[in-house]
């Protein structure tokens, strides 16, 4: 293997694949990055057997070949080089990668490329296409609701459903649920339903920044999902199992509906969060209707040891007065990903789910289970 490329390009490529490198693994080769020539490009690959990332870097290839080298070492070295041309060559006998850049040179001992897991890429016929900006927004709205506790692995994933009409992402733990839907530029002809690890979507969001659109493919064995962007590919294993039937949790009616200014509500809740910290994060919302659809919202938090805090907001209210308690962290998590000026909260009674929706057409629903409050 013999090639040359620019330091900036290589450094950028390494940062893209870098997060997929396994940090602790029984397979030494997984803490390496695979470098392989691919026609006139250099292909970089890393995998932790959950997420794999491939990235192509423009290069001048004079001799084909492949090698894996320790990711940390390579990345740190390349990052410290000046922005000039780097010459890479493989000394096959010793499986050592030689790098030269100006007057700097390094030899890095590698592991045979044959040891690296092969990750096959499926045909393109069942592809779906996303606009990157929309996809990023959707990911933001669901991933935080996925469980982090791995004792029930399906809940650490994001349920993803593709239909000819578009895509629906849903994530839930036992206490909240986020569902977001959107039409997409290109949808598959048939319904596909899979669970993607939340980490994979977070990583996708990180590396998809520059691409305009993302193509998604699901392998026919339903064990892998591929996201393809120009010069970058992310492949994720899927979580096996049955996702909870979340649709039936979403209430269809309400007895109280309140609409508040998103920014005001956020501010009141952030304040309450300070006091709720020592009280299981419980915040109380008192929704009081007035004449003509107007009303007040009283947000309060009490810390038995440290004091309390009350805020009052003008809101519009439809229906019954109600007092309901929520985990304030959960409310904040949801409100922080709402970008409309106004937000609605709907509920039936203090023990029914609270439904949070942006006001203004977007297809996003967040459900939070209220807290039981002793009176």
């Amino acid at each position, binding site marked *: 293997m013999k090639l040359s490329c620019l330091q900036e390009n290589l450094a950028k490529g390494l940062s893209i694949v870098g997060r997929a490198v396994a940090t602790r693994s029984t397979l030494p080769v997984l803490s390496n990055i695979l470098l392989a020539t691919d026609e006139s490009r250099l292909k970089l690959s890393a995998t932790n057997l959950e997420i794999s990332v491939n990235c192509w870097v423009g290069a001048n290839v004079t001799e084909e070949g492949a090698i894996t080298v320790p990711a940390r070492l390579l990345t740190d070295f390349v990052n410290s080089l000046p922005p000039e041309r780097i010459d890479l060559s493989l000394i096959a006998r010793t499986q050592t990668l030689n790098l030269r850049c100006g007057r700097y040179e390094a030899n890095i001992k590698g592991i045979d490329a044959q040891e690296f897991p092969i990750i096959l890429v499926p045909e393109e016929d069942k592809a779906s296409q996303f606009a990157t900006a929309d996809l990023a927004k959707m990911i933001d709205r669901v991933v935080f609701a996925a469980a982090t506790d791995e004792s029930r692995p399906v809940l650490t994933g994001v349920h993803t459903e593709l239909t000819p009409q578009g895509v629906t992402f849903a994530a839930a733990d*036992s206490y909240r649920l986020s569902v977001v839907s959107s039409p997409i530029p290109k949808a598959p002809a048939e319904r596909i339903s899979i669970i993607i690890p939340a980490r994979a979507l977070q990583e996708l969001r990180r590396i998809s920044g520059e691409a305009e659109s993302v193509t998604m493919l699901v392998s026919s064995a339903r064990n892998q999902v591929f996201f393809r962007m120009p010069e970058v590919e992310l492949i994720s294993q899927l979580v096996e199992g049955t996702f909870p039937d979340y649709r039936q949790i979403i209430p269809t009616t309400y007895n109280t509906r309140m609409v508040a200014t998103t920014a005001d509500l956020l501010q009141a809740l952030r304040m309450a969060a300070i006091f709720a910290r020592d009280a299981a994060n419980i915040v109380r919302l008192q929704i009081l209707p007035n004449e003509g659809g107007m009303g007040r919202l009283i947000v309060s938090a009490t810390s038995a040891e440290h004091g309390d805090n009350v805020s009052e907001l003008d809101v519009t209210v439809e229906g019954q007065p109600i007092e309901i308690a929520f*985990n304030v962290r959960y409310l904040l998590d949801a409100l922080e990903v709402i970008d409309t000026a106004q937000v609605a909260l709907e509920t039936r009674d203090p023990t029914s789910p609270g439904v949070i929706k942006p006001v203004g057409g977007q297809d996003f629903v967040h459900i939070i289970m*209220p807290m039981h409050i002793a009176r």
Partner: protein
Amino acid sequence: MTTQALYNRWRGQTFEDILGQEHITRTLQNQIKAGRIGHAYLFTGMRGTGKTSTARILAKAVNCTGGVENPPCNQCPTCRHINEGRSLDLIEIDAASNRGIDEIRDLRDRVAFVPQESRFKVYVIDEVHMLTTEAFNALLKTLEEPPSHVIFILCTTEPHRLPDTILSRCQRFDFRRGSVNAIADKLRRICAAEGLSIAPEAIQRIARRAGGSFRDAESLLDQLASFSTGEITASLVEAILGTPALSLVLDVVRAVATGDIPLGLRAINHALDEGAEPQQFLGEVLEYLRALLLLRVGGEEHLANLEPEAVRALRELASREGFPVSALVRAIRLFNDAGPRVRNAVRPQLPLELALVEALLPSEGAMPEATEGKGAPTGTRPEPAPVRTPLVEAAPPAQEAPEVAAAASPTSEAPAAAPSGPPAEKAPAESRVESAGEAPSLTLDWVRGHWEAVILRMRSLDRQVQALLRDAYPVAVQGQVITLGCKWALHRDKLSQDDKRALVEQVLTTTLGTPCRIQCIVQPEAVEQKAAAPAPPPNGGTLDLRSPSDEALDARQSLLNHPVVKDLQRRGGRISRVELYDQEKKGGT
């Protein structure tokens, strides 16, 4: 895809499916009917008796929306979601991996959340005994006043590890060990439904082997089903489970009864070579030896469960003359003792062989003990060495003597030869008792003569004990029991601690060349006596040898003080640093 394990496929879905636990399922059903559902249950019982299954059924039953008379209906969405493992309102927590206080605090915060789709949020905490003490305390707070929408079900195989405060707040249900019949019943049901063909004896064997656990039985059945091509037969069960061939087991019993050592040794080796599981083999040998014993003392009724072949063989052996019951009891005890060794041995046949040979040797009581104190045996005539002189006073394990042995104890094993002196801290090991009569009698002078050597030797072993011994002196000897007079009560107590006492006894045993035990009393004048007239080494062995290290000095010193060396010195042996051993060799020949 893996085939779902039988025990999962056949997990009970209704209260009626939980076999052998009617006392529990009926109570739960009545509670549900009466609407008196508890908020904290504790399910205890050994593995595979239905705890988790019942917990899930209870979760379905309290939330069932099917409107049937005896919930769960297993049809409504709530039931279905629980069955499919996708309900958000049944939360199974594994206390083993969430055992800390943080996890339980987190749980405490979360129980305030109301259920998403059903009436009750059910928390099943499995292996609850694994929680830390702090976690239990945190859980206690939650159990004290749980929100009305929450039901806790704590499950454990080890209820004795739960604090009383937890126990007292739960309705406790003890799951019974499955009876062989109940297990066989379930196996029959499964086989019929799965289309497995199985011999009735095979079902019985599996049910017996399962030891009361339904899951064990189902696992075994699963394994046999995946192995067999046709009918599951009793012999297949034997092959997979490593059950030894009956004929070889009976050969060992026959060897014991007839004194045919080669027959027994060959049978043991044969069985293990053929793949018999050593512990099972031992278990079977014991079972038939016991049957033989019972037959000898006139118990016919125990033969009912045995194979006709075995009954014939045992009857014949039982009618033999010249085979005392006491010998049989001894054999049973020896084989029983071999148990723990069989498990750990690299060569599991070895403990079995030893048990057999020892059982058939002339009984120990009749064997004179050769001791260094009497001089080395020099003839070529084989003279048995001391057979069991444990260094560490290994108290016999509590389970050592099988019940049968206890029943038959008024025979030669009775502790007739027990030292009549004051009883030691605990009963001496049996072997000691047996050999006590034969042990050479120690004299106080002999012990005192070696006292300095004992103290010196102790230096490299335990300095603290050495210091204690410096302030003690032998005041009496009775049989093997040496009474040490200590200066202070504190010293007496320390020396009486098991580990220190064992160490002193070790050193005394090797120094004096005969098994010794000590007993400590407070007698300050004894120490003064010693100080006044330190007993010189019996023959003026010089202590002025100097060597580079304490350790080397000790090694030499202990040699110098060894009774054999002293014996030789008495006979005019000359000691010099390098020629010590040569000298002795010359003396020996």
